[in-house]
């Protein structure tokens, strides 16, 4: 028995879903079957262990097809299949034919193609096919992001995504072709005894970093994630950006890494974590805020990977293993809770028609289940026990603290990283208190929020699936630990023996106890409140007789203290019409956080390139005599070069 037949079923399921995209139920069943067997195949490969290698002897583009499913691929495949399944279930109701008759069926085709090509990226053992699958999945994602392309901002977001994605892919072309030319083959595999390949790591870091959305390269991410349909945002944020992480993990495991590689990755990770969450705090758009949290969580993953690389370079298996395990588990965890949060945000958007947090509020009344599930996801992403986010952050912390206790050179990086990781956690908590409070609690701030309704059963089921996975990893982390360790061992086989003993059983027991105690305390207090008698009154607002929903604290004011601290990079723009005179007519305040990197770095650079190109274009003006002069000058220059070259 091998994962082969299961993968074949998965492939057939996705293909059948594509073929039957016009019939929603058929598509759903076929795609779910595909995802379930993909999940089974990934889990099989991760649990049972042997690497599945498949070479059918068919050539594609001059290279024979070679698929391989080892622990690292399987680790990411499990996440892909789980989120793909949840997203499909959600989409069947969220992007239904009735509401989107023109865009729903093609959307399902692109969806299935996206899942399939991402799976191919994970399994390709040939550089050329890796690039093909990479490019195809990027294009599928483009068509999914631009489902509502009658909107200008959606088109702009799609275009930015495509441009950024291709910048990264260009680097990957350079990476794979240099790799192929130096090794003489497109076949991918472990080549750690070739130190001359180490500089290629920088190309991979840029190419995969753009996809992963690490800090200065994240420019495409917020608008793409915000403007895509929510199930697409979930898979983009949960899985697609993890393809960049997969590439980094895969090739830092197979190829030698330059001495500075680990330090740079860890530094970028810390920058992404802190600045990602700082930008998130400045957002007013619910989905854009969640998108910036992807930057933050990619940062946490990269801190784990970076310290693993430092450890590998220095031969400190113990804490390197912990850091990488934490980073990898965070790949799963982030996929799960961010998927859940994006689906929850989609339900809000579906129910109210707006993503503006200043228009929302009090949604728990209309959508209590969504509010509860979103709150669970918020607690998980803030890294709170007893949920899964804490487990992976705890592992990364353990790695960092052990590195600091080792007092080697790595400690100098581990101390600031641990402190900044702590601040990231507190910042994320502030941000999610804000989101939950402003969106779901309090009073509705607009008529749209007043008219909200609970989402349907399929959408809820998809969210519950992801929430259950979050709770499962939080309460029983020890069950998932062998899978993570197996993946770590696939990354550095020599670390297999050094697998650290981590008290995850104890942590799991503490988590279960905490959950039970919390449930008991809530029950007791609720009973006591009912027993003692309950009266209702208006909120105390310093004696105002008629409190209005507009008096509530807004998202911007809530985050104001923190965005003030980060004003040096957030550069918030304020348009204020101050209160003037004794009986002021109008006063307004409008605050907006721009995309600093995009607007202050990428756009000026782009317009400079445009100006330069325009200047060069003056050379072409249609005057024949001048062209003949160019020709003569060119020939003369060549002749000079030939004479000079010949003289040497």
């Amino acid at each position: 028995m091998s994962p082969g037949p299961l993968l074949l079923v998965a492939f057939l399921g996705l293909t059948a879903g594509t073929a039957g995209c016009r019939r929603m139920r058929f598509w759903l069943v076929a795609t779910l079957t595909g995802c379930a067997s993909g999940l089974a195949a990934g889990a099989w490969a991760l649990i049972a262990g042997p690497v599945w290698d498949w070479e059918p002897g068919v050539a594609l583009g001059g290279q024979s097809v070679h698929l391989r499913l080892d622990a690292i691929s399987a680790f990411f495949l499990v996440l892909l299949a789980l989120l793909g399944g949840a997203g499909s279930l959600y989409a069947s109701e969220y992007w239904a034919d009735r509401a989107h008759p023109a865009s729903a069926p093609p959307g399902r085709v692109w969806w299935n193609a996206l899942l399939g090509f991402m799976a191919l990226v994970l399994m390709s053992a040939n550089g050329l096919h890796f690039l093909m699958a990479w490019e195809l999945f990027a294009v599928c994602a483009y068509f999914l992001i631009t489902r509502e392309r009658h909107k200008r901002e959606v088109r702009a977001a799609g275009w930015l995504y495509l441009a950024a994605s291709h910048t990264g892919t260009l680097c990957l072309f350079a990476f794979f072709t240099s790799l192929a030319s130096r090794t003489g083959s497109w076949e991918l595999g472990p080549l750690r005894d070739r130190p001359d390949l180490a500089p290629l790591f920088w190309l991979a870091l840029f190419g995969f970093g753009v996809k992963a959305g690490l800090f200065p390269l994240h420019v495409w991410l917020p608008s793409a994630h915000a403007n895509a349909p929510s199930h697409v945002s979930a898979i983009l944020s949960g899985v697609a950006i993890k393809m960049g992480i997969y590439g980094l993990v895969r090739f830092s495991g197979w190829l030698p890494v330059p001495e500075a590689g680990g330090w740079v990755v860890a530094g970028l990770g810390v920058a992404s974590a802190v600045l990602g969450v700082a930008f998130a705090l400045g957002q007013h758009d619910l989905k854009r805020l969640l998108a910036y949290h992807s930057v933050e969580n990619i940062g946490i993953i990269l801190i784990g990977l970076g310290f693993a690389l430092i450890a590998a370079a220095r031969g400190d298996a113990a804490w390197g293993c912990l850091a990488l395990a934490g980073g990898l588990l965070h790949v799963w965890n982030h996929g799960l809770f961010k998927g859940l949060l994006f689906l929850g945000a989609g339900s809000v958007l579906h129910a109210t028609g707006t993503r503006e947090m200043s228009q929302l509020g009090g949604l728990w009344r209309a959508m209590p289940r969504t509010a509860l599930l979103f709150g669970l996801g918020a607690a998980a992403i803030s890294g709170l026990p007893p949920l899964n986010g804490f487990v992976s952050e705890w592992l990364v912390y353990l790695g960092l603290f052990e590195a600091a206790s080792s007092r080697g050179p790595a400690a100098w990086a581990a101390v600031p990283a641990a402190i900044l990781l702590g601040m990231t956690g507190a910042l994320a908590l502030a941000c999610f208190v804000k989101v939950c409070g402003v969106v779901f609690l309090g009073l509705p701030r607009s008529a749209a929020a007043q008219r909200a309704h609970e989402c349907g059963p399929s959408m809820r089921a998809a969210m519950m699936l992801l929430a259950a996975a979050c709770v499962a990893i939080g309460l029983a982390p020890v069950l998932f630990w062998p899978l993570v360790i197996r993946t770590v061992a696939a990354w550095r086989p020599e670390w297999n023996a050094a697998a650290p003993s981590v008290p995850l059983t104890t942590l799991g027991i503490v988590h279960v106890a905490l959950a039970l105690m919390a449930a008991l305390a809530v029950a007791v207090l609720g009973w006591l409140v009912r027993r003692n008698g309950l009266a209702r009154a208006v909120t105390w607002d310093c004696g105002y007789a008629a409190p209005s929903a507009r008096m509530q604290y807004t998202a911007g004011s809530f985050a104001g203290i923190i965005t003030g601290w980060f004003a040096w990079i957030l550069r918030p723009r304020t348009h204020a019409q101050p209160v003037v005179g004794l009986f002021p007519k109008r006063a307004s305040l409008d605050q907006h956080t721009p995309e600093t990197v995009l607007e202050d770095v990428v756009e000026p650079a782009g317009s400079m390139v445009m100006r330069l190109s325009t200047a060069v274009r003056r050379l072409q003006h249609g005057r024949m005599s001048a062209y003949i002069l160019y020709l003569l000058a060119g020939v003369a220059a060549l002749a000079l070069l030939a004479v000079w070259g010949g003289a040497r």
Partner: protein
Amino acid sequence: MSHGLDVLARLAFWLVLAPLVPGIINKVKAWVAGRRGPPLFQLYFDLAKLWRKGVVLSTAVSPGHVAGPAIAWVALMSAALLLPLGPAGAILSFRGDALLFVYLLALARFCTAGAALDTGSAFEGMGAAREVSYAILSEAAVITALLTLAVQTGSLSLGAMLAPAAGPGAAVLAAGLFVVLLAENCRVPFDDPNTHLELTMVHEVMVLDHSGPPLAVILHGASVKLLLFATLLVQAALPLGQWPAGPAAGLLVISLLGVAVGVGLVESLLARLAFQRVPLLLTTAFILCLFALLTSWKASTSSEARQGAMNPAECRCSGTRAAHSAALPGESGGKRA
């Protein structure tokens, strides 16, 4: 069986003794001001009364308004149970429980701030915003303090980190942790528990709309948090592990009292800081912890085991010294808000 008794004894310690700390602080404040002050056991009377009282809930709130305080209380009690108690050690000690401790405090904060936002009141929004914003800096200081202890002892469990002798940077660490204690528990100079102006409060304003048993749970949780930070501070600064069990327990109790008196004195002698100054003081606390980290790093890398040579008599006064050094930045910026 004895383990069960141990758990019960500790639960009783935290449940019963925690509300004493605010009583002591209030007595000290009254004594400095020349008043008689409320009885030492005032909080117990308040809790007993609130426990029996009916509840008035805002029309805006969700069920989370009652669930939040309950979960926050459980999180604070769990964090307290993770702390070792001098010679008695901890009930449960495992590698990395120090981080669980920090994140349990974060869980409590999440629930309290969430329950505050639930009312839709702008005042409570302000309080919650301040609480979560200042917590960023104090969490950085706490993580740095834990890193200091981890570097000193090479361990990641609170039991082993707090048990041995105080490190060379103990006084600085105590000063930093004392400022964090004041900030996390919303004492002067960060917040005034006695203030009557909603606009200027942090913690008190978040609980404006709570009443009855939920308010009792919040007040008790706050006192547990105060005692918990005091216990952490005392054990991080004093070499309790070097003393025999009896004197160590006595020293622990005496120094806890000392911390409470210190808080009372700070509250009597200092004005509340303007809100703009709060981050500066918290950054000072963080830097103090960072200095402690660097000191202990330097000391432990220079190969001789100096940790044992620390004079216990010198450390005993670190509680009061902590109060003194915490007062310095407050005095410079102590403008009345």
